[in-house]
């Protein structure tokens, strides 16, 4: 076993980046692991039923997976795919977000209109908070003070004080809000509305919608443009929004809040995840069963990688051996 290890080290010498992209396959009950060095599926391992959101611990050594039909958040060793244990998660966990402390997990329980807060280390439920119907999107502010969840049928963003674990406010947004993403400075929250066909930009201080971004694609009827996943570049200059059955990802200039490009990807694109360094991002395409790799500077799709059936969420970590500080996730918050 020494030789292959040396070989890996040799490959890693120099500036070559290496990431692993973990993709949840909703229909197959598996996770596919893509190696960014050659964009091959390095391995696939089984997880619980109907896996959706997934995210990494800050050190990349634990993978959390929402197995929504198993009513569990699974903690998995990402190197081996071995299930370490389940976390108490509440019924039907759909998406979650890990707080900056690396241990407080906010979980959206879609079927029973609650957010479950779990201490991932003590494996203990800290609170269950009543929110609107069908909570889905979850995000924690970069300073860890606020958590938000979006409720798909109530059509609101619910604000949770992360210290007291109380719902403190609700902001109405467009129909069927699905995903929430804080900007790195924590001042702005981006929320997609799948049926409304818009993205709401919310000022966190006032909790008011300051801008509603609409989309228009020539030759695609407006109601096929259904925003779901959102990813922001590290410099905050660009937002990428997955537009569902329009099979496009929109690139948005965050300063002018105008769409600069529509990028054709696979069919029914759910989520997007940036790779560290920001040169590339990946999309999960539910109907075509693949992942599209986008060149973030050229705003072009450069390749597609076949994964399992109904790929949904994606999370990124440095490949073992490559020392990179953090992973980023989509469909699971960060």
């Amino acid at each position, binding site marked *: 076993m020494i030789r292959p290890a040396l070989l890996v080290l040799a490959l890693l010498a120099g500036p070559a980046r290496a990431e692993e992209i973990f993709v949840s396959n909703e229909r197959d009950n598996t996770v596919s692991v893509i190696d960014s060095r050659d964009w091959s599926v390095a391995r696939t391992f089984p997880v619980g039923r109907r896996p959706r959101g997934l995210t990494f611990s800050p050190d990349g050594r634990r993978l959390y997976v929402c197995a929504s039909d198993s009513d569990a958040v699974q903690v998995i060793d990402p190197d081996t795919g071995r299930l370490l244990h389940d976390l108490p998660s509440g019924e039907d966990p759909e998406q979650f977000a890990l707080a900056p402390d690396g241990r407080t997990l906010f979980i959206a329980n879609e079927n029973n209109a609650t957010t479950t807060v779990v201490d991932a280390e003590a494996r203990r439920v800290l609170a269950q908070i009543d929110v609107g119907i069908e909570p889905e999107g979850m995000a924690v502010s970069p300073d860890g003070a606020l958590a938000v969840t979006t409720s798909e049928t109530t059509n609101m963003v619910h604000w949770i004080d992360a210290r007291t674990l109380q719902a403190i406010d609700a902001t109405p947004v467009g129909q069927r809000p699905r995903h929430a993403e804080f900007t790195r400075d924590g001042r702005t929250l981006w929320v997609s509305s799948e049926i409304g066909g818009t993205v709401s930009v919310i000022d966190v201080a006032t909790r008011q919608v300051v801008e509603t971004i609409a989309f228009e694609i020539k030759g695609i009827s407006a*109601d096929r443009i259904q925003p779901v996943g959102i990813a922001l570049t590290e410099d905050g200059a660009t937002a990428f929004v997955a537009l569902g059955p329009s099979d496009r990802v929109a690139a948005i200039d965050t300063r002018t809040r105008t769409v600069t490009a529509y990028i054709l990807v696979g069919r029914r694109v759910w989520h997007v995840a940036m790779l560290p360094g920001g040169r590339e991002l990946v999309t999960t395409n539910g109907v075509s069963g693949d992942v599209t790799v986008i060149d973030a500077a050229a705003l072009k799709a450069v390749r597609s990688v076949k994964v399992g059936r109904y790929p949904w969420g994606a999370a990124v970590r440095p490949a073992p051996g490559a020392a990179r500080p953090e992973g980023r996730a989509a469909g699971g918050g960060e």
Partner: protein
Amino acid sequence: METSRGRMPTRSDLAGGGRARVAAALALAALLGPAHAAPEGGAPTQARQPTPLAIHYIERRVERPKPLNNEPPVPDDEGRAGAQLGLADGNATGRFVGLRFSLRTSVVEPGADLRAALTEGEGARFLVVNAPAADLLALADMPETRDAVILNVGAPDVALRDRDCRARLLHVLPSRDMLADALVQLLAHKRWTRILLVQGPGAGDAAYAEALRRSARKFGARIVAESSFDARGADLRDSALREFALVTRGPEHDVVAVADEAGEFGPNLVYNTASPRPVVGTQGLSPAAWGRPVEAWAAVQLQARFAKLAQRPMGPVDWAGWMAVHAVTEAATQLKSADPEAVRRLLLSDRFEVGGFKGRALSFRAWNGQLRQPVFVLWPGAVVAAAPVEGFLHRRTELDTLGLDAPESACRAFGGSR
């Protein structure tokens, strides 16, 4: 959810005393504890308990034949259970903006005057009505409903969306022509365009058959032959093999379409045609507003909530009942207002859009009050397609390829050109 159903906390209420449930036992303790002892949930909110926006569900009970083949009968609470779920959903949402909704239900026996139910309604301005066309028109023409919005969840009659339309009478259930258009779009897409039509004796059967004929003309399909079948007097268990062979014999065809709304013979026609052809229409491959196999677009969530409430699968009229109440509560929530006049104006305006677990924003057509919506084409085992089917285009929205478009509708009660 149980903790929140008793009262509807407002936004500030949540800020002040929102509940974090640590565990079931703790939640119970909190509920029983002194701070939460009163059903209203404590003094601070009692004074601000909002006046509910009243919705009245009115249903005409219909006697139906016993289903064939030991199939379950149409549920007694069809439509009603949907409206109840709509109320629960509406209140779960409304509490975040300080709104509350109430639902009164009246079930009128066959032969009794449906209009009498209105006097029990305490002047509700939103009437969700599950009744035949004649009842709807009688209600709509009463002076007492002048300021009401009536939402039709049970009558598929095209005439109600055409020359018999009424201002403020909205149709949540798809009309027969929308159903037929959905089915024929799929047939055209598959190039199964030669149709042999078998029609039952009922007035609804005739209307369904007529809708199929119109759709065939609209989308380039062809009715190659027609026959009729009356199941009365025959025991299908004995005679099906022989009799169905006779009525389904005809020129070359791709499908056998059946118009049998009461299900008096259609279920037995499947796999019993003269030629090996699929049965489509009221049985076999059917167009419907909703059905048990529907699961895309988060329908699974709605199906699960309904099954929990009603202990059975959700049908088209249940969906329409849910959708009608959801539309009213959603309009109020968007306005953050329980003012019935404001809610009515928004519902009838072209600004109003609402989700309905069908993958698209739904809205009411300005020319006849029909809710524009996708229609599923399904059989009990699976959804085969959701119409509008790919390739059927419309300059406004593809959804308007289903049913009467503005120039085709004789309805003028909504102001015609809007």
